[in-house]
């Protein structure tokens, strides 16, 4: 807060202050606890103020690591992740993280330095048109042109990032703005006449939906990450139980509904479980809550839920009807809509048979792998062991690829906000830095990073941050000496022509960890896995675990590209 100065006994809300000071004061006002930032020329004035600030600052070793860490922090804490980077290369290094956060609706407030206003447009040293570059991958972006606007712009940025459908907001901060001193009102009003997210559902739509549910024979809820963003897990459970409707999750929604619940079917999509996909195909009423019908979930749209009346609750009206024609649209916050649905207390649908059928699918077609094979270390087995030893209570952060799908399949979650993964953008390199943010957001939780040998090497430099802050992250590398998912597709669809997916040489991950002062183990057998996991999972030290898994293992079941959800392959051993 600004200290209040008084003039002749009269309280004043203005005082002389520099742009950089205003920025820091505004962050304090927003109760920012941690900044993921990397200094540089254009942000020197801001860093000079950070030097005196009480806000914790985490220095990643690459800006991309910083923004992915902020994403992990945002996903677990529910608060916006705050990032600072310098102009030019510092700013452009954030691009992947911004696109990732945009796709997965994560609230970020990102500050980039910019060259001084007097030289903007002259191709000055470390100048990049970061507004032009990031317009399509941010929820909003703007440049501070007048120092007096700083408090308002920052207040608006936090408001935009965290309300409605969350997303990244970028503020570009010219260097001279940071050093200018003015008298300014530090308690501005937000002025966003074009931004009013609809939170409350339309009553008539809720009525219509309630009636549709009551008369359905095969109703199904598809619960997306919107459930997590609006903190509606309790309402989802209450509603599903009240109406006795089975629940399928999207990949990003995992944890929104307890997976040990009898109404939980599984997660749907390309590598989801058979029962979930079959239920999506066969249902006669599909209630989508906070999911966006991503192509990895729907498979071929022509065969998606062919017999279903589709209802869709989403805070973003543009998602409704975008991919799947929707009969009952409900624009609302998931929590508010669910509350009203619960209040309707509609007649339970007559779906006993449907529930039995789904159960029978789940019994007949569970996830499977070759448990007989004792020669090779199976990734599924490793994850089952980790699940058992952490009692399913760990925060699981993944990178992108085969290991991500195995983690989704073999680490069932019963609670919300324990799952951090890059869904929409599918960003390799996301996992390691995101686990840093997750551990910072939840210092007392066990954080398990599940990564592949490819993705782990895309942001390896962040190991130093883990060491520096002694973050006890358990880094699991499911190492198959390959870009496994690429290899899998080449095996299945490109006649086993493994173009550049078999990694010819790899660092010694144990020595690599050691170079950063982190303990590392190479694990080749089930027995080693058992012993080492027992030793390391519950201590306060970070650890790198290089599991040498069966390189031939594929992710199954699977829906081949272009196929419908009813055409899953590899559903039985």
């Amino acid at each position, binding site marked *: 807060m600004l200290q209040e100065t008084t003039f002749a006994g009269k309280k004043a809300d203005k005082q002389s202050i520099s742009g950089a000071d205003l920025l820091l004061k505004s962050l304090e006002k927003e109760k920012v606890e941690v900044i993921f930032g990397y200094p540089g020329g254009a942000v020197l004035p801001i860093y000079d103020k950070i030097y005196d600030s009480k806000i914790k600052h985490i220095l990643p070793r690459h800006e991309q690591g910083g923004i992915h860490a902020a994403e992990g922090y945002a996903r677990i804490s529910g608060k916006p992740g705050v990032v600072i980077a310098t102009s030019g290369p510092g700013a452009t290094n954030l691009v992947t993280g911004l696109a990732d956060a945009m796709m997965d609706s994560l609230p970020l407030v990102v500050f980039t330095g910019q060259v001084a206003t007097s030289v903007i447009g002259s191709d000055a040293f470390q100048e990049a048109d970061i*507004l032009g570059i990031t*317009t399509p991958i941010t929820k909003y972006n703007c440049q501070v042109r007048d120092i007096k606007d700083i408090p308002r712009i920052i207040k608006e940025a936090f408001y935009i990032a965290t309300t409605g459908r969350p997303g990244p907001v970028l503020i570009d901060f010219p260097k001279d703005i940071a050093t200018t001193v003015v008298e300014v009102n530090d308690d501005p009003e937000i002025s966003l*006449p074009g931004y009013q997210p609809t939170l409350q559902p339309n009553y008539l739509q809720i009525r219509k939906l309630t009636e549709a549910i009551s008369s359905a024979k095969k109703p199904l809820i598809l619960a997306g990450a919107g459930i997590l963003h609006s903190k509606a897990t309790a309402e989802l459970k209450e509603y599903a139980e009240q109406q006795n409707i089975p629940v399928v999750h999207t990949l990003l929604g995992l944890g929104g509904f307890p997976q040990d619940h009898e109404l939980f079917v599984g997660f749907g999509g390309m590598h989801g479980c058979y029962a979930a996909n079959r239920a999506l195909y066969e249902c006669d009423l599909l209630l989508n809550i906070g999911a966006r019908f991503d192509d990895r979930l729907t498979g071929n749209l022509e065969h998606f839920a062919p017999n279903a009346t589709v209802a869709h609750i989403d805070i973003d009206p*543009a998602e409704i*009807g*975008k991919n799947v024609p929707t009969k009952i649209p409900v624009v609302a916050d998931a929590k508010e809509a669910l509350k009203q649905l619960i209040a309707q207390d509609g007649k339970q649908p007559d779906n006993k048979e449907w529930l039995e059928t789904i159960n029978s699918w789940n019994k007949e077609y569970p996830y499977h792998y070759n448990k007989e094979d004792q020669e090779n270390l199976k990734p599924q087995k490793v994850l089952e062991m980790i699940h058992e030893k952490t009692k399913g209570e760990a925060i699981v952060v993944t990178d992108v690829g085969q290991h991500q799908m195995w983690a989704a399949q073999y680490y069932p979650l019963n609670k919300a906000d324990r799952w951090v993964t890059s869904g929409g953008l599918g960003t390799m390199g996301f996992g390691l830095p995101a686990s840093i943010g997750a551990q910072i957001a939840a210092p007392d939780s066990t954080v398990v990073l599940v990564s592949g040998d490819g993705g782990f090497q895309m942001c390896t430099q962040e190991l130093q941050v883990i060491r520096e802050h002694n973050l006890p992250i358990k880094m699991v590398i499911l190492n198959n000496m390959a870009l496994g998912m690429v290899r899998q597709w080449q095996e299945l669809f490109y006649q086993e022509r493994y173009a550049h997916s078999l990694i010819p040489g790899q660092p010694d991950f144990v020595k690599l960890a050691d170079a950063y002062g982190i303990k590392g183990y190479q694990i080749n057998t089930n027995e080693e896995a058992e012993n080492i996991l027992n030793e390391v999972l519950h201590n306060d030290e970070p650890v790198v675990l290089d599991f040498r898994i069966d390189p031939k293992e594929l992710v199954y079941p699977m829906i081949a590209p272009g196929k419908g959800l009813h055409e899953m392959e590899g559903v039985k051993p």
Partner: protein
Amino acid sequence: MIKRIISLTVLNRPGVLNRITNLFSKRNYNIESISVGLSELEGVSRITCVVQVENESIIEQITKQLNKQIDVLKVVDITDQAIVSRELALIKVPTLPNNRHEIYSLIEPFRASVVDVSKDSVVIQITGESEKIEAFIELVKPFGIKELARTGTTAFPRGMQLQSNSQKISIV
């Protein structure tokens, strides 16, 4: 393909036009024309986009995506309303002593006007709906068009919306 006219009011902030055009390219929508200018409110601009789309659901997506932009105040697909829509074109036509009269005779029925005359050419200004301008251009084409500049369509709903009003009715 269906042609739709979308009228937007936006906050006149830096980058807002970039945001709109960016959205069209990001989502793979085709803009036929776009015109931007100030509106009756200070700090608010009006943008008129003419788009060609394959079906109704795409136009719904376009308006929703536009609406989602923070700086966008209002988006209306005004195609089916009674609207006033105008476009302006400047056409430079070469003239010879023997065809000047013929060119002038075309101008009158279209309520176009000659805004510049030189020794060997005239510049004709014409305003109206796109179709009228198209028709006029076709008529003067045989004389050879040296230069042509067209604004996009700008439009808004008429003051009175009669029940039976068809979108095609235009009282010029």
